[in-house]
């Protein structure tokens, strides 16, 4: 069964053009870019081209791009670099809705004696900016705030926040793993000092990421070794994946420049509004005015997410859930809890995330199957009282 793949915030298909660009670097152009011979040197030139492609997508200059192995490595490198280059500062500021790559690192640093502020969000997932600014101090080593949320797609006003933080002389990092390639980003117009991105979220392969470090930002490497990446990240380059990431960024730029991203938004909106009108007691999680065009987090009240996912799985529909049972933890996602989504809704929240490869037919298939699935599960639920009765708590 060909999957109906609506889980693109988890990972994406490698674009055919990306795969094609990569393949020669496994068998044909396998030289080491650090070598003195031209067989390796040619690879180095193409890596430089990939660096330009990545930089161009986000409005950076090529030597501000460091290739890493993934988004998590980029996040960790950025935060550690900031605190290590300013060891007297013992305060870190982040949000309550970060990806585990930032959240768990900050929690671990808190155990080591750092003071960490987790800025709250409101019921729509919008950042409490007043709280953020109030919490900054001369002791703050870094502010790390995601560009867009992976679960709800809510976009934070990074342009303004980063400017304000930078004006205070504090390093600003953003985990933009979900934003890059989905919405236009121009770092020249922001105060962002460091930005993380990940290849496999934008149709490049897994195992490649990048960290943008603004010129003049104090930096110390996380992976210490050879002189690769100008000594900022040791280790022989993952050449094929870097070439792939470059090509993927070029394709993403074309996609953002064309009408591709409006088409994704239309598909997403059709999915969302139809589900909301056909299935009672259903709501959208997050601020619908400032959201990634591809993400819909929908709460189906009085049913449980894992059960929905597994029933959809029977029809080849792939999505994700913020419910407890799917994550292996026993509580619903920290993002939905931070937003104060009631338990009746949090346990039944499903995230659909589209890509430029999503088709009308795939959306139709979901709309065809999902209302029946929800109805079936609600019939089984002791909390569901149909036909106008108020469900019991």
């Amino acid at each position: 069964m060909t999957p109906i793949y609506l889980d693109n915030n988890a990972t994406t298909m490698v674009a055919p053009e990306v795969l094609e660009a990569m393949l020669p670097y496994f068998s044909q152009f396998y030289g080491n870019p650090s070598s003195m011979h031209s067989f390796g040197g040619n690879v180095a030139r193409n890596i430089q081209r990939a660096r330009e492609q990545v930089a161009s997508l986000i409005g950076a200059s090529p030597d501000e791009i460091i290739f890493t192995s993934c988004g998590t490595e980029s996040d960790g490198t950025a935060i550690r670099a900031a605190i290590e280059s300013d060891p007297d500062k013992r305060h870190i500021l982040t949000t309550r809705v970060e990806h585990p790559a930032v959240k768990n690192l900050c929690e671990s640093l808190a155990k080591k004696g750092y003071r960490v502020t987790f800025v709250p969000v409101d019921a729509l997932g919008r950042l409490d900016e007043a709280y953020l600014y109030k919490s900054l101090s001369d002791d703050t080593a870094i502010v790390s705030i995601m560009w867009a949320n992976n679960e709800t797609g809510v976009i934070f006003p990074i342009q303004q926040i980063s400017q304000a933080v930078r004006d205070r002389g504090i390093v600003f990092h953003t985990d933009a793993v979900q934003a890059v390639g989905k919405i236009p980003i121009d770092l020249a117009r922001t105060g962002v000092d460091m930005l993380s991105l990940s290849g496999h979220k934008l149709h490049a392969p897994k195992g490649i990421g990048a960290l943008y470090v603004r010129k003049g930002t104090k930096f110390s490497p996380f992976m210490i070794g050879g002189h690769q990446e100008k000594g900022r990240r040791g280790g022989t380059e993952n050449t094929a994946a870097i070439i792939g990431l470059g090509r993927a960024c070029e394709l993403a730029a074309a996609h953002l420049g064309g009408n591709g991203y409006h088409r994704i938004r239309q598909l997403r909106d059709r999915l969302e509004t139809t589900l909301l009108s056909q299935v009672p007691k259903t709501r959208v999680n997050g601020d619908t005015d400032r959201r990634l065009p591809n993400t819909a987090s929908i709460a189906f009240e009085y049913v449980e997410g894992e059960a929905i996912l597994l029933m959809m799985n029977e029809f080849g529909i792939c999505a994700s859930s913020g419910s407890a049972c799917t994550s292996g933890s026993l509580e619903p996602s920290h993002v939905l809890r931070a937003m104060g989504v009631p338990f009746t809704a949090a346990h039944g929240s499903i995230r659909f995330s589209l890509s430029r490869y999503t088709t009308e037919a795939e959306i139709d298939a979901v709309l065809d199957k999902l209302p029946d699935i929800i109805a079936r599960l609600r019939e089984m639920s002791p909390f569901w009282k149909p036909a106008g009765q108020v469900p019991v708590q």
Partner: protein
Amino acid sequence: MWEYSDKVKDHFLNPRNVGVIQDADGVGEVGSIACGDALTFYFKLDENGRIREATFQTFGCASAIASSSALTEMVKGLTLEEARKITNDDIAHYLGGLPKEKMHCSVMGREALEKAIACYRGEPEKKVEGQIVCECFGVTDRDIERVVRENHLTTVEDVTDYTKAGGGCGKCHDRIQEIIAGVKGIQILPKKKPEPLTNLQKIKRIEETIEREINPNLQKDAGRLELVDVDGNRVLVRLGGTCAACTKSHITLKHYVEAKLREMVTPELVVEEVHS
């Protein structure tokens, strides 16, 4: 993705006996929407006191629905005495096993069955027995003791898999460990909170740590650390030897000296450099 047995999948996708028995002889409700799963179990007896009909309504994941469905099939035709002997392990076994993390679904089935039988016998709704240990999921010491005994559990993680206790904030992990030890007949001495140090003791220990641990290490690189003063939890030091000229000395101070003193003396210490 969870590895569910074919039988779990079958009972989830084709659940048996879903619904309500309006004139049920016994009804048992467990769980809550906040906890993420809940089950209401109904049964009706025949003239010989055997379960003629059993139904359920469940809010929860695939294994919760499958466990409920399995339970209704297992109890059919049994007397209440016989039904009462069903354990959570029997339910899991009937389903061809459950992932370890999902064993609490089978425990929920057993609890609902017991409640329904108690309801039939007119036994008063039991007040929460024992003391709440896990506040996140409302699990008592009695509940934990029972699953530990019946399922031969040995770790806090096991207890979380079977009852959810300890799966939220994690504050009750020590208490769960004590309960496990209690069931196994091992005595655990409560962790003693260290007595606060007097100023004199604190200074002595700081001096000892610098002399015995820190300086021998710094001396390898011809460096040296001198204690200048202790003011509350501020430890004032002066760097000597190669350290004095080293551009990375602030890193050594925070990441090595301070960490070491916090470990050996008290975690509140802050090390500050005094320039002579």
